[in-house]
């Protein structure tokens, strides 16, 4: 989904109108006369996937300090409105400025956005519930994408894309299931294809191809390549062959990703506080009450004075009942490693004693539909007293460290029970760099 507002000639406007995306351009018709150019793009190739991380790109020209607000209503009939807000400020400089992030999109009722400068709306737009789609994308990079349509089942969400549409970060590939490249368009960067595969995408690249495809062909020179949570395979000849390959099932970790994450999340110990033991509290309070009572009842004026002293001492000692931190956090991560690269899926939980806003580093996806704000690279959530919230971090690409490379096959001590069933024969589950690394055996070297 793309929205643009730019100063262009009437002819250019006409050409754009005749072309495919004119409807979206007209959605911001009032901004056409504005000198600034803005463009907002959500999702891979303009297709946003509900319930997944999606790339968000905003390009602003000559609008220093403009603010970008994207509001997601993650509510429903029962919950009512649940606003989730992304806010960013464009760098205070002229020329072309970009904001490029990955956002978790809940199953939305409505998504609306607005780009403003000094109270003037440069661009705005919205997506309704009808445009919500939680099916993963099957991307086809081909000059004849329709020829590959039959390779996917009828319910698949097949999108024609170009090399420029492909996300650079692992989180951007969260909503993509398949990447098919048949070699008829300009070749995408090898790094993007490897990132896609590491993120759990099943990538098909031509084993032979025109100039520019040498790097991609090298990936599958020795047959299918397991990398991170996904794989890179040679593009078969024709849609029928591709269909049978797809029907044969995914390679890599793709199939177990959601179950593994759910299982690992359950193993996370919830964050807590170092409360004063209840026995100490009982001893202190009962002792205090008995002491002041007895002093007042039996010892006369001296007792009353002593009771005042005991009361003062108790008041002075009371702050020692405070826990070290009113806000507790716990984080953990699971990395699916293969081919020298790993896909890191992290999750965290925050618990807060006082009512108020908890701020967490990074843009995080709440595990349930709740009100959050993403701003300045942080996630803010309002918690009631004693409230807690769980989040998932954006998927990240990592190199496999030496500790994992050198780990013998098997399971490390203290590994979460829920993950043991996922370790394949000859595979390993080890702890390194504050994460559990799940690998199918030889983790290989980075392609």
């Amino acid at each position: 989904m793309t929205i643009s507002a730019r100063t262009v000639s009437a002819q250019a406007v006409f050409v754009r109108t005749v072309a495919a995306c004119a409807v979206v351009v007209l959605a911001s018709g009032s901004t056409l006369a504005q000198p600034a150019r803005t463009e907002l793009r959500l999702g891979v190739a303009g297709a946003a996937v509900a319930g997944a991380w999606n790339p968000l790109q905003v390009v602003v020209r000559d609008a220093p300090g403009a603010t970008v607000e994207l509001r997601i209503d993650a509510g429903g009939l029962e919950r009512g409105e649940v606003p989730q807000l992304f806010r960013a400020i464009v760098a205070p400089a002229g020329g072309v400025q970009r904001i490029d992030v990955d956002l978790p999109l809940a199953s939305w009722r409505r998504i609306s956005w607005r780009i403003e400068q000094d109270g003037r709306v440069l661009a705005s737009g919205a997506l309704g519930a009808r445009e919500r789609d939680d099916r993963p994308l099957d991307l086809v990079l081909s000059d004849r994408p329709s020829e590959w349509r039959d390779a996917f089942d009828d319910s698949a969400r097949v999108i024609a894309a170009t090399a420029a549409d492909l996300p650079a970060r692992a989180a951007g590939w969260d909503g993509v299931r398949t990447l098919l490249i048949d070699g008829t368009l300009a070749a995408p960067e090898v790094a993007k294809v490897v990132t896609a595969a590491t993120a759990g995408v099943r990538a098909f690249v031509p084993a032979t191809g025109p100039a520019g495809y040498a790097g991609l062909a090298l990936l599958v020179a020795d047959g299918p390549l397991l990398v991170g949570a996904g794989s890179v395979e040679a593009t078969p000849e024709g849609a029928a062959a591709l269909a049978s390959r797809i029907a044969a099932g995914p390679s890599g970790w793709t199939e177990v990703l959601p179950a593994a994450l759910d299982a690992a999340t359950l193993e996370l110990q919830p964050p807590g506080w170092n409360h004063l033991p209840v026995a100490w509290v009982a001893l202190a309070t009962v002792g205090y009450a008995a002491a002041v009572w007895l002093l007042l009842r039996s010892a006369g004026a001296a007792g009353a004075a002593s009771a005042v002293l005991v009361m003062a001492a108790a008041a002075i000692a009371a702050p020692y009942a405070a826990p070290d931190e009113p806000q507790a956090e716990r984080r953990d991560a699971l990395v699916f490693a293969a081919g020298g690269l790993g896909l890191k899926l992290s999750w965290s939980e925050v618990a807060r004693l006082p009512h108020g806003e908890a701020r967490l580093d990074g843009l995080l996806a709440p595990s349930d539909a709740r009100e959050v704000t993403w701003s300045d690279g942080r996630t803010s959530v309002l918690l009631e007293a004693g409230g807690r919230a769980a989040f998932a971090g954006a998927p990240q690409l990592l190199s496999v460290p030496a500790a994992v490379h050198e780990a013998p096959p098997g399971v490390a001590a203290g590994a979460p029970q829920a993950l043991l069933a996922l370790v394949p024969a000859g595979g390993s589950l080890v702890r390194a760099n504050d994460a559990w690394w799940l690998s199918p055996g030889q983790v290989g070297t980075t392609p």
Partner: protein
Amino acid sequence: MTRDARLAGPVGSGSALLLFAVVATLLANWPDRSTDANLAWYAVARVRATGILLLAGWVGASDPGAAPRQRAMALIEPLAAALLSAPIELLAYFGSVPAASLAWSVAAPLPLALAAFGVSWALAVTLRRVRLGWSLPLLLPAVAVGLVMLDVRIGPVLWIPWLLPFAPSWPAAALLTCVSGVTAAVLARSATRHEEAA
């Protein structure tokens, strides 16, 4: 009455009951697992403020024909109960780390006690003068319920004891200060008159 007896006398079973209630509430709500949030203060503050108000109301309404000096001594009981229970509320407050005003929650029950004492005393004296003293056990709770309903209608919390610790406000502070000031002034004046007459 000796000086010692005067000191010990007012701090009677009412204060003991309040202390017991506050301590029991604290222990019942203090978490025994680190993953449980400590919400003890919210319960303790409610019980303490409500207990002090009930105690002050009961003391104010009992024996409306007592000598002014005795009445003033009776007032010591709810005030002493408020002071004695304050450290326990402090303990609960620091353990729960609430986003609330400590000064307000600890101090507000004092003027609340004085105001409740004054209102119940005024009601008891009025009913006694019109020879309806027998209806006090019925009218006092009815007036209390009416005042709570009035506060709910008004909007901001002014005197509802189980909400007051969590809702600091200038109107509540002003109102409680005024009513407790009037109570103190009337008590002092009647005591002075009584001494002069004696």
